[in-house]
């Protein structure tokens, strides 16, 4: 084959490949019929979301007393859930921004879904601090709103920092996500034959024409956004960890919290991405886009961050002993051997033991095992926050105020309901938006260089 023919062949192959990607990804969006499994899943998700609606109705009419919180455990499940969801919301931006900056091309197949997951997780996360206040209708007082009373939030409070950290993170994540969607919306616009859809996609794609200049500017902007988003990955969970680290409580008042929380967040975020993408790629037949290699890479990240988290647990214990602070020492002994020991050992098993299986190639390549292990990691990370918040609060300085904590039915329905919210949004996303960044996948494949003369 001459080089000319080879070129032609390459270009033809690339066209074929690109068309395949476009057809697969757009096919999901353009399909007239809803897949049966999707309808069933959506119905289930909306039912669970209904639980959240009922729980919130009860909450607003009855007060936070419907939960298990009490004098000692002023924070409990709602804040556990908040930190849990914020943690989940870490993978998206990490994958999109940090891995982008690190030129990890395998990210392209999962970044869109991971970003969407981030946004939905942050929405779930944002819900909890608001509804867990005693008077949620006044929660906006945490925002710096100018008023004639001259009342501002108290900027020394980590909760005020949280407001900025989480809202900034949410804003940047949404912008970043939307920016990535623009070229793909344009593709959808160009493919659709419906006038209505054409108009909607036309608006969403902001008049994208795909000119070289546009692409040039786009890529610069994307790089800048990535650079802006990267510190946020680290700042959000650091600041969330300040909610605890700034407190005086033994078990909270710890300098290790920011890095430990960030590692934990990435850990849980990646586990969640895998939990979602393993079934999704199967159901939408996208194994050729989200390949086994991608999955394996993600398990390695989980192994790394899981080990960091395990290390942090060990260091916490060591410092509690080494500091000689009797209250701190007791808190940690109490975590491991007190009334909540079951929660502690669940956490240790799920977060420290489970990821160690990823040392084995056989495990890393078996999606069923990966799926199972990732579910356990999600459970473990929820328990991590439970251990930090509830176990510490249940036995603080004054034994006279010690109390065992039990959640109520509404604690459970509110938490479960937040999954309903998450999955409803995620399922809608899967069906109505390009769940894979088509142009990025194309750009990252070797076909992208087809037709380029090699000298």
């Amino acid at each position, binding site marked *: 084959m001459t080089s000319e023919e080879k070129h032609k062949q390459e270009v033809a192959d690339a066209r074929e490949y690109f068309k395949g990607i476009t057809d697969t990804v757009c096919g999901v969006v353009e399909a007239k019929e809803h897949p049966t499994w999707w309808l069933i899943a959506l119905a289930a998700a909306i039912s669970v979301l209904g639980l959240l609606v009922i729980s919130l109705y009860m909450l607003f009419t*009855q007060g936070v*007393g419907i939960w298990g919180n*009490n004098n000692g455990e*002023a924070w409990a499940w709602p804040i556990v859930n908040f930190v849990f969801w914020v943690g989940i919301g870490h993978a998206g931006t990490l994958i999109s921004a940090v891995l982008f900056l690190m030129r990890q091309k395998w990210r392209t197949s999962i970044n869109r879904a991971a970003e969407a997951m981030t946004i939905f997780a942050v929405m779930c996360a944002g819900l909890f601090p608001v509804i867990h206040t*005693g008077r949620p209708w006044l929660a906006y007082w945490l925002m710096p709103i100018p008023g004639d009373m001259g009342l501002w939030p108290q900027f020394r409070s980590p909760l005020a920092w949280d407001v900025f950290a989480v809202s900034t993170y949410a804003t940047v994540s949404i912008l970043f996500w939307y920016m990535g969607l623009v070229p793909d919306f344009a593709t959808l616009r160009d493919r659709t034959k419906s006038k209505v859809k054409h108009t909607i996609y036309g608006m969403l794609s902001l008049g994208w024409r795909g000119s070289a200049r546009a692409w040039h500017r786009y890529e610069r902007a994307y790089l800048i956004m990535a650079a802006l988003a990267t510190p946020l990955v680290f700042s959000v969970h650091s600041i969330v960890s300040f909610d605890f680290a700034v407190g005086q409580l033994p078990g909270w008042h710890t300098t290790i919290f920011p890095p430990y929380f960030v590692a934990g967040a990435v850990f849980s975020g990646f586990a969640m991405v895998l939990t979602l993408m393993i079934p999704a790629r199967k159901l939408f037949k996208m194994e050729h886009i989200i390949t086994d290699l991608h999955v394996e890479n993600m398990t390695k990240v989980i192994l790394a961050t899981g080990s960091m988290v395990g290390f942090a647990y060990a260091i916490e214990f060591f410092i509690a002993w080494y500091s000689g602070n009797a209250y701190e020492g007791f808190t940690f002994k*109490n975590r491991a051997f007190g009334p909540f020991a079951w929660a502690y050992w669940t956490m240790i098993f799920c977060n420290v033991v489970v990821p160690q299986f990823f040392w084995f190639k056989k495990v890393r390549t078996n999606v069923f095992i990966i799926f199972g292990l990732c579910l356990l990691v999600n459970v473990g990370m929820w328990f991590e926050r439970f251990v930090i918040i509830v176990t510490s609060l249940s036995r603080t300085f004054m034994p*006279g105020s010690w109390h065992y904590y039990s959640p109520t039915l509404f604690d459970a329905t509110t938490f479960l309901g937040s999954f309903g919210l998450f999955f409803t949004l995620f399922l809608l996303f899967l069906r109505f938006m390009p769940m894979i960044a088509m142009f990025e996948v194309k750009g990252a494949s070797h076909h992208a260089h087809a037709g380029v003369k090699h000298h």
Partner: protein
Amino acid sequence: MSSLKISKSGRIVTDSQKTSEDRLWRNMSELEQTPEFEEFVAREYPEQEGQLANPVSRRRFVQLMGASFALAGVTQGCRWEEEKILPLSRRPDGYIPGVAKHYATSFELGGVAAGLVVTCMEGRPIKIEGNDEHPYTGGASTSLAQASILEMYDPDRSKSIVRQDKGKEIGATKSDLLKALRALKGKTVHVLSEATSSPTMIALRRQLKNVKWHEYEALSQDNSVQGNKMAFGRPMRTHYHLDKARVIATFDAELFGANPAALRHSMDIAKTRDPDSGSMSRIYSMESNFSTTGGFADHRLPVRSELIKPILLGLEMLIGNRQLSDVAADVLREAKVADFIGALAGDLKKNKGSGLIVVGNEQPPEVHAIAARINATLGGMGKTVTYTPELGNNPSHMASLVALLKDMNTGKVENLIILGGNPIYDTPVDAEFTQALAKVGTSYHLSLTHNETSKLVNWHVNRAHYLESWGDTRTYDGTVSIIQPMIEPLYDGMSAIEMMKILGGDQFEDISVEAAILRVHGFRTVSDKGWRRILHAGFKPGTAFRPDNVQVQAFTETPLTETQKLGSTVEKNLELTFRASATYDGRYANNGWLIETPDFITKLTWDNAALVGPATARNLGISNGDVIEISVAGNSLKIAAHITPGQAPGSIGLPLGWGRKRAGYVGGHEDLGIDSIGFDTYALRTINGFYSVSGATVKKTGATYLLAETQDHFEMDDLGTEAIQRRADVLIKNSTLATYKKDGEKIITKDAHLPIEKSLLKPIASRNMNASLHDKHDYGTNHQWGMTIDLGKCVGCNACMLACQAENNVPIVGKEEVMNNREMHWIRVDRYFKGNPDNPQLVYQPVHCQQCENAPCELVCPVEATSHSEEGLNDMTYNRCVGTRYCANNCPYKVRRFNYRYWNKDFELARNKVRSLLSNPDVTVRSRGVMEKCTWCVQRIERTKITAKNNRRPIVDGEIKTACQQACAPGAITFGDLSDKESEVYKKQDLPRSYALLASLNNLPRNAYLARITNPNPALSNEKAKG
């Protein structure tokens, strides 16, 4: 409340609510009972409410909470309720809205008074305090007196007269009743009254020749009086002078709790517990139930109640009265008992003339007589103990009751008037009062509530509360104290004097009660200056009883019983003891404040339980919360068991006054379908086993029961127990007098295992804050409020908790929410048991907001709802609080309380409107979703500042008293200005034993605790090691 029925439609109706035709009505809307009209009635005429307002959804507060899970549209209305006000067109004389008025009156319980000053706002009494000027009871008050104001506003009070014949209700008005009572004139009338020391009532009784008077109280001082009769030949009242005693030994005695002289005892003992002035008394306590006295004592030994007699005889032997052979009881040969009474006897011999033996009223008369004999030997007569003659030669309450029962059962009682009380409920089970009552011709019952007894009488008469009526009474020392009304009777009730006055007696028939009292006290008109002075002061000076010189006579002693000869470790013979509880004898069973105040020892709320010591529990195989069946003398009772450290082995404590069937919405009511709270231990109380009974059997039923404790909510694991043992000494510093003399300040810093707790103990002026990273607050020249709590003076009476509740509109939350750890008390008392669970040391500490200078709560509030005042207080801005609860997390003292629900929601029910009249208008009633906490009664501080400023004078040290401090009889709490170096609080914070709680956190609390210094006998110092 008038009697209640269930209508056909399932609603509960009062008798006056039958059909519109048979009622009088005032206008059409009243006849139709429109909602507007009902609302109007509820607001304007709370006294009419029970009859006119439609009692919708009558549920108990707790049930209301529990039912909130139901989805039924319970909506939170707007936050600010719209109210229409009707201004007065002319201001009544002396009435200034918003300015409190204070009046002196008296509170009578079991025939013994306490002097009070009542704060009234806009004509409604809102707070009860002790009468500073009263020579006997002083400025403090008991928890019962504090809570009695809630009793007046109790929506469950009876609001009308109820007449019954053969179980059927007949409509009756007050004039019908008056007619019926007047018809009794000249006829033989039996009266069963509560104990009363009212001089007017006594005068009235003398007039009423045909009245056969009987008195009954479920708890009384009879045994002491009868014992003195044995010892001295005539009934005498015992007065202990704790301030004059150096060595005090109590035997099954409660000095500071349910004791008629509790306030005096508390004040007196405090004078002898000041380690800084150098001399301290020493207290020994032997008892069956863990009492606050036992907790306060330097040495305590739990023994069965019945062993007190042999032990006292043994003690008598040791101080030289007796031959050894006289007392053949195994218990004296036990090392712990022998050591204990050996050391005690040694101390008593060393302190001739200043020793004192105190015996609890639950002990039989003979033991009191023996104690009198020992006190005489010790030379304490006339010094540490005095005796005054009892009024008249009355039989004991039990003898009086038995005599009445005999008359009733033989059909001799034509007319029976029961003045107060609740004999159906609180008489011994074998007295069979119900059967006897059925044989009475016509029965009348004067009562605040339509209770168990009211249901079975022919005439129930709604009683006027003491805050609504005129009366007189005497304190324990005899000082005549006046009861004057603070408010018109809310439901047109009658007082006991008023009712008896109708029966005749030439002198009193046609005059008012006030006039009758005037006459009895020798005044002619209400404007008489002498009378005005007495009214103003609240008491008649110089009317105390005069102590008599007494000589102990020989009396016949009964031989020891078989079980008394057994040692204290024998558990085969189980003894039951009956004691007063939070509801006293059951009369306060509907008083939410008292019921939710945790018992000082058990920390139980909303229930009583059988108190079983750990050893006994092991022996019987019982664990906490097991339902056990106790049988004795043919009666049996199923009751939850509470494992109580320090309860004597072989002795089960049964607090009285629970399990009421007709108490009300709080305490349970059979007609309303509301379960009783607690267990009715009267079911086991018999005439012969009135305070204690031997030979009980216990068996497990297999059922368990949830008890609401505010501490130790769950069975503590070893890890937690160990931490508590370690922390108890760090949080609650204590030392002995000898060590304190030697080491001074070092007693605070002795524990090296935990961070040093004494870094900033100097009063605020001399605190070294240079090391701090925090900016110093600029306090300027403002007052700097500070407080000290002397742990060595706290006697565990809980009065501070009740006073705080009343002052600060602190809500109650119900049993379920207590179990959820959501109780709202701004001040609590943490108590820990240290050492051997069978004979532990009790350490305790009242904890409220410590008002930190570097307050961890202030830092973390995102909306600045809690902030620092220029006077050093942590202020709460309720309407700025959004309820993140971060402050509560970050408070190391866990004193912040969150409104998880709208606790005051039940006030909005029409039937409860009257209850909201009790609220202190100076303190915001908090809504759902906001945080609250102790403010050191900032409203009192501000009020005093305003008064001082208006009078152009500085605030005098001690002028401001917080509610808790005001109620504290032993004076453990001191409040004042730390910027004034002459202030009491400054001096106390400067004492070497003053320390800040968790000082190592550098929160710089403005409250300091004074370490508890005990004065143990060196001869018993090994006792702790032995445990």
